C-alpha cells in the first residue's frame, strides 16, 4: 500500500508516477507530484518508480475564480 494525498491506495510492483496518475485519472495540466516530499518533474513521471509504503502528494494547482 502507498499513501496518495493522505489516503491509503493500492500499490503494484514497478508502478511509476505516470501509472498512478493514469490510474487516478489525474489529467489536470497544472499538477505537482511529490514522493516522500521530493518533487518529481513532469519529464520524470514515466520513469520514476514508486515503492511500497511511499507517501505521494499529487497537488492540483487550481484555486478557482
Amino acid at each position, binding site marked *: 500500500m502507498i499513501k496518495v494525498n493522505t489516503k491509503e491506495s493500492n500499490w503494484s510492483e514497478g508502478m511509476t508516477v505516470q501509472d498512478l496518475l493514469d490510474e487516478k485519472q489525474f489529467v489536470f495540466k497544472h499538477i505537482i507530484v511529490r514522493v516522500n516530499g521530493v518533487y518529481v518533474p513532469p519529464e520524470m513521471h514515466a520513469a520514476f518508480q514508486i515503492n511500497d509504503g511511499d507517501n505521494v502528494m499529487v497537488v492540483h494547482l487550481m*484555486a478557482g*475564480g
Partner: protein
Amino acid sequence: MSCAKTADHFKLLTGPYAGQCVTVDGPEYECAAGLGANLGIFDPQAILEQNFYCDTYGIDLISYATTVAFIMECYERGQISQKDMGGLDLRFGNSQASLELMHQMSRGEGFGPIAGLGVKKLKKLFVEKYGADEKLLNDIGMENKGLEYSEYLHKESLAQQGGFALTNKGPQHDEAWLIFMDMVNNQIPTFEDKAYALFYYPMFRTWFGLCGLCKLPWNDIVPADNHLTNTPAKVPEHVQNYVDIFNAVTGKSIDKDELIRQSERVYNFQRVFNIRMGKGLREHDAAPYRSLGPVTKEEYLSRQERYDTQLRELQGLDPEQMTLDEKIAATRTYRERQFELLTDSVYKRRGWTNDGVPKPEHLKSIGMDLPILLEIVEPLL
C-alpha cells in the same frame, strides 16, 4: 489574460430585441450551469439568450438561475400550481417559459416580480399562500442569508459547504473555493485543516476587494518555480508580489501577515455589522440540507454506491440491512453533525464564540476593539 468570452452575431428570438444580432458576454461557467443544466435546458441558443437578457435587464444571473430552478422543482413536486405562476408552465427544460418569466420580471408584470423576490422570500410565500411543505422547501431552497447559492455541486465537499455558508455575504465562491484542495488533493483532511483554509483563503481573497485588485493573476498564472515552494496552493511568490505592490504604492511597510490582518479587521467589522442587522449569528450560518447531502430519494439513488460506501466506511453501518429512508436519515444525521463540528472549528480559528460572535480579546488583538463594535458583541457573550 482574458476574462471575456463572447458570442458574436448572435440572433435573439424573444423579447424587445427579437430579430437583432448582438454580442453576448458569456456564457461563463456559472451561466452555463445555472441557466442550462440546473434548469434542465440543454439548448445553447436558449442559454445564450437568457444570458443576454439577464445582462441587459441587470438581473443577477446566479440568483435568477437558482431561483428559477427552485420554482421549477416546487412546481414539479406539486408544491405550487401553474395557476400560481400566472399560467407559466415552468417545468424543467421549458426554456421559453423561463425567457417569458425573465421578460415579465423586467416589466414588473405577471409572475415576474414574485419570482424576483428570490428563494428566501419565495419559501415563505409558497408556504403561507399555497400551503407548500415548509420542511421540504427549507431543504431544497438554495439560499443562505437571503443570497442564492452559486452552481457548484458542493455537498460532497465539507470544506466548500463551509466556504459557502460560513460567510458574511452569503454563499459565493469569491471567498473560499476549496473543492479541489478538499476533495481531489485531500490537502485539508482534518477539521483544523479545513478551519485554517476557511480562515486564510477568505482573508486573502477579501484583501483583493479592499485594494481594488483582480485576484486572477494570483490563481491563474503560476510562477515557474512554484512547485518548489512549501505551500504551492498559496502561490507564495504572488503573495509577496502583492505585498511589494502595496508597499510601493502606499509607502508603508507591511508583510504577508499584516496583509491578512488588514482583511481580518474588515471581515470582523462586517461580522459585527451583520450581527447588528440581525443576521450574523450561528443560526444565520446554517445551510439548507441540499447543500450538505441528498434530500430526496432520487438524489440518494443517483449516487447510491457512493453514499452506501460512506455509510459503511464512515459510520460502520450495513446499507444492505437498511431501507432507503433509513439510509437517507443516517446520512443526514452524520452530515449535519459534520457541518456543526466544522462550524465549531471555524469559529474557534476565527476568534469567535460558539455562537459566531467575535470575542472582545480577538477584536483587541487585531486592533478592532472599537467601542462601536464592543457595545454590540459584549451583551452576546
